[in-house]
């Protein structure tokens, strides 16, 4: 039995008289500590899959089995999520945003103070603990969002195109940061992107999604950091692009 298993996941929407299948027959086995990157074109169901895992939507059919237990609304997958936009709460400081998963319980908040400071330091935001979200750049805000997702010590970190709204240089920096955090933290990551280069730079496995179905599952045997202009990397780009092209 694998660490996390998606079994026959299906999600369909009713649109007027039409039924739209956003996801069909998704079967996926994920091992602890993997960095899964899901690539696909717009409308391929990448975000829907992540939203189901984050309990923001419910699947129409199928099940999510985590450590041999079926996840449901009462027993959700212990996940932290980073969205495409940072979605920081503008009335809280950086530190309070990182502590957001614990704010419900004042005792927790006090206990977690040091952890929040450590995370802020790890994310390179030392000195910005008391800054407000409006005072941060896009890249800094996204780092805080990552800190928030990590602070609740999730089993899996879900990332929904977290770098797509950033400029090229900030994006490259954050890609390196993500790899560092992944390697240091030993957590399982699942990220959605439409950037094939990014997927291959970050992931240990790339899942190609096409019209709601898994088209290919490509393991990346390369270590970090990855160099783009080597034959192995180029070969992987070709494999992913072929899978995506086949999807047309």
């Amino acid at each position, binding site marked *: 039995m694998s660490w996390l298993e998606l079994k026959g996941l299906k999600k369909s929407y009713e649109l007027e008289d039409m039924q739209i299948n956003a996801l069909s027959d998704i079967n996926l086995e994920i091992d602890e500590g993997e960095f899964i990157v899901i690539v696909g074109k717009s409308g391929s169901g990448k975000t829907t899959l992540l939203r189901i895992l984050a309990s923001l939507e419910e699947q129409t059919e199928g099940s999510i089995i985590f450590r041999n237990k079926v996840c449901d609304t009462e027993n959700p997958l212990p996940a932290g999520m980073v969205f495409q936009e940072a979605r920081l709460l503008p*009335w809280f400081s950086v530190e309070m945003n990182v502590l957001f998963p614990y704010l419900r319980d004042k005792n927790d908040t006090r206990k977690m103070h040091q952890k929040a400071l450590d995370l802020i330091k790890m994310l390179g935001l030392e000195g910005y603990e008391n800054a407000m979200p409006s005072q941060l750049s896009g890249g800094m805000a996204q780092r805080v969002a990552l800190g928030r997702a990590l602070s609740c010590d999730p089993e899996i970190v879900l990332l929904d195109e977290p770098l797509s709204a950033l400029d090229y240089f900030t994006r490259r920096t954050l890609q390196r940061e993500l790899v560092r955090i992944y390697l240091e933290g030993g957590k399982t990551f699942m990220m959605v992107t439409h950037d094939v280069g990014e997927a291959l730079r970050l992931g240990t496995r790339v899942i190609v999604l096409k019209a709601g179905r898994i088209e290919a599952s490509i393991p990346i045997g390369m270590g970090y950091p990855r160099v783009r202009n080597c034959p192995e990397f180029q070969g992987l780009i070709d494999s992913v692009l072929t899978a995506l092209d086949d999807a047309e």
Partner: protein
Amino acid sequence: MKSGRKGIIDGGLIFPLALVFMWWFGSSAGWWNAFLLPSPGQVAASFITSIQEGELQKHVWASISRIFCGFGLSALLALSLALICAWFPQVHAQLDPTLEFIRHIPPMSVIPLLILWFGIGETPKIILIILATFFPVFMNAMQGIKDCDPKLVEVAKVFGYKKWDQFKFVILPSAIPSILTGLRLGLGYSWRSLVAAELVAASSGLGYMILDAEQLSRSDVVFMGVLVIGSLGAVLDYGFLIATRRHFRKGIDL
């Protein structure tokens, strides 16, 4: 000296000072009848006399007590109802047509009924202030709650926040600017309705003082009353703004 000049310019005092100067100059030059528009000196003199006799303090206290009581009750009612309506949309759906009906009734039009039902004591005056201030507070609070970004609510959901915690930590803080705008508007409306409230057989209050002065043809006292209402309203509004800015976090745009 320089900072004083800067304060006058930045504080927006040029226009009112120019108006007072024009008023003083026109009065001194005899451009108009002093009965229709008394000079600043006459108004200042009646202001000082009224303070010396303790009349102004009595009327200001009576008015402010009514405002605090009426506006306080109104804010309490409006915010409580907004919370109930936000939490139970079906309650809001049932109340909405009735509230819309009441909202369009000018509070002044129910003065005769209020006297008939509650007599000529404080109750009808307080109710009139409540009627005038309830809707800006209620509607702004509702709008603020409705306008909460659903993406922020999703963040709370992802981290396991139940409905009440989503409301407490995300929806309510995001509605605070709108709620405070409603409270400020309501506070302004309470001053507007005050004169009408004090028309209801009052024997004290700034509205009463103005009406009494009208009957005695004391236009200087009428002017003084109007200026005191305007100044008190502005001071209360400024105080409210400062207090809320201090109390709420700097991330909330007030």
